[in-house]
């Protein structure tokens, strides 16, 4: 049951999906679960919509985790976020305000096939699991497959590379499904947040070029406040800035696509740590990582509710 779900350990895909069903059932006034399509291996792509149902127009925040299969702290955070929302709604006025005024669309695992593969076969798998019979290598980098400067610098046309961009943009059914969902709601969704690991960074567009985004000052201000809030919890420093200069140039990324699609705040979090454990962040560090990240996300949400 949901009450027995341990948020301080990593969970398999099946456990996460069972938990989603339970949350949908237990908190039906705040949580609504639905599917936006199927993965390459025909697994459902589940989303949780959080928020008080309203007849009036509500803006929304999109959060996805697990674009890259081996980055397990991402899905752990997505679960933590949902838990915090439902458990604090009744006694946290800020959370009440969020859920009354907004919806949160949470996709705990975007790359469901890859995540399952990383649990059962190859712990360090990154890509999707689509097959390329011609070249003998499987999978596409789901963060190089979006239709924005697709397969340019920082992506690869070699199917055997970990940053393979795919045979064409949105070739991956997971990417296509999310893109279709966001395109349909482009006027509603005001923030796109994607969770990765590891580097301890908060990144915003552009990834594919060195230019400044038009609303740089608003986005930079939101990022600055978010990393300060994050630091205030456990003293963990996150760098922040445009992905192209803070990390490296990459094309076809989800944050660039979301931004190009009209979502004014598009962020990629690279969660803990900076390499001591890397992808193998111990479960004992799930709670501090998620607690500090939660505050950063709340900050960004507060920022977008104000006029900038």
């Amino acid at each position, binding site marked *: 049951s949901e009450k027995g779900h*341990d948020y*301080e*350990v*990593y969970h398999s895909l099946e456990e996460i999906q069972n938990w989603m069903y339970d949350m949908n059932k237990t908190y039906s006034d705040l949580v609504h679960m639905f599917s936006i399509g199927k993965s390459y291996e025909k697994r459902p792509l589940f989303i949780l919509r959080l928020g008080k149902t309203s007849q009036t127009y509500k803006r929304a925040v999109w959060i996805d985790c697990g674009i890259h299969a081996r980055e*397990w702290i991402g899905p752990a955070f997505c679960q933590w976020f949902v838990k915090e929302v439902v458990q604090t709604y009744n006694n946290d006025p800020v959370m009440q305000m969020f859920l009354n005024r907004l919806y949160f669309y949470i996709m705990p695992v975007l790359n469901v096939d890859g995540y399952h593969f990383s649990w059962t*076969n*190859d*712990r*360090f798998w*990154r890509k999707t699991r689509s097959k390329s019979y011609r070249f003998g290598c499987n999978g596409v*980098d789901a963060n190089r497959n979006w239709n924005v400067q697709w397969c340019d610098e*920082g992506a*690869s046309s070699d199917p055997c*590379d*970990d*940053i393979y961009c795919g045979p064409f943009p949105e070739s991956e059914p997971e990417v296509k499904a999310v893109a279709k969902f966001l395109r349909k709601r482009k006027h509603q969704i005001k923030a796109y947040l994607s969770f990765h690991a*590891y*580097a301890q960074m908060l990144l915003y567009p552009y990834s594919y070029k060195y230019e400044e985004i038009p609303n740089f000052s608003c986005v930079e201000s939101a990022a600055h406040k978010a990393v300060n809030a994050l630091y205030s919890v456990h003293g963990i420093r996150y760098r922040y800035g445009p992905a192209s200069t803070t*990390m*490296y*140039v*990459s094309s076809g990324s989800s944050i660039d696509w979301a931004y190009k699609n009209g979502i004014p705040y598009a962020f990629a979090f690279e969660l803990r740590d900076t*390499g*001591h*454990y*890397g*992808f*193998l*962040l*111990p*479960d*004992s560090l799930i709670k501090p990582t998620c607690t500090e990240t939660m505050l950063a996300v709340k900050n960004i949400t507060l920022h977008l509710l104000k006029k900038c």
Partner: protein
Amino acid sequence: HLYNNRYAGDQVIRVTPTTDEEAEVVRNINQQFKTDLWQPSSTFNIRTGTIVDMHIEKNTLQTFLAWLQQTGIQYRILIPDLQQEIEKQHGFKRGRSRR
């Protein structure tokens, strides 16, 4: 053992090339040994000053380290046994809860 113990003896090594020549060497080593690059996500992104974390399999480890030592590039072992870290991440708390 998880994953049939396939990661036993594998290591994660960190190098930070300090010159363009070292960066070129590190790119070449990665391509030659087909390492599992943890960061950055591609050899294309390896430049001077880039922190490079590589997962090296046990059966190529000695050769890889020997080659790296020959180049004089400083390196650090981040994770000396990947299987141990995987086991720690996976089940420690669950085992405790079960007990």
